[in-house]
């Protein structure tokens, strides 16, 4: 059993954990309000891309090409009592959609589990191959 499967599954694990990290960051900052709509936190999301491998076109891992910020508008809330509010009494909350983030989290953890299973199976088979004839 070559190490290729471990490389591929490992790339998926790190990509999914980046995704989980962005979800955690988005959820943690869901209520970080600001008085300036441009300075407020913006939801982040990773962009996945298959790793093109000229050596072996068959199997390719996955990589995070970058983390992009959502371009959705910040939520405007009327909170005149908030010390951060602007002169009209509004504060701006991040454009984080809690429901979307939760779905993202579940999807990421399921994909992570799948890759862990792939790794476990590959490991078992490697061990069996090593123990041939014993």
């Amino acid at each position, binding site marked *: 059993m070559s190490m290729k499967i471990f490389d591929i599954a490992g790339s998926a694990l790190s990509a999914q954990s980046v995704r989980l990290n962005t979800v955690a960051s988005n959820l943690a900052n869901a209520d970080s309000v600001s008085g300036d709509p441009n300075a407020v936190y913006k939801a982040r999301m990773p962009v*996945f891309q298959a790793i093109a491998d000229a050596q072996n*076109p068959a199997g390719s891992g996955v990589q995070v090409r970058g983390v992009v910020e959502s371009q959705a508008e910040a939520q405007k809330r009327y909170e005149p009592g908030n010390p951060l509010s602007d002169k009209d009494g509004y504060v701006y909350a991040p454009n984080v959609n809690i429901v979307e983030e939760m779905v993202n989290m579940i999807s990421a953890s399921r994909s992570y589990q799948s890759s862990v299973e792939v790794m476990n199976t590959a490991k078992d088979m490697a061990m069996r191959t090593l123990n*041939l004839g014993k």
Partner: protein
Amino acid sequence: MATDPLFGIHADALQLQRRRMELLAANIANADTPGYKARDLDFQKLLAAAQQPAATAAGVTQPGHMSLDDASLKSATVYRVSMQPSVDGNTVDAQVEQSQFAQSALQYQASLSFIDGRLRSLITAITGQ
């Protein structure tokens, strides 16, 4: 695909299953990559290529041998027909990939058992007990 006198086709079967599992692992790894197309090995094509009498590629020393080279693997790598196409162009269906991976792993272990049996009989013959 050299027919080894001791291990038969099983050594090559292991190779094939390993390559297939690499491909399926790549599919599972890219389950969330936009635009990724799931791929798999077409066994029929591989078998047809292996049975070609003109298999005189490098490494084939006898006409009866079959070769499992990169070129035939590449030509037998096909895109999977998606059951549930998604908006982002990804055609990976995690359930399909996982079941195929399990099947491939099982076939790998079957070949391993055959090889193991051959090895055991060889050890019995050598030790004479």
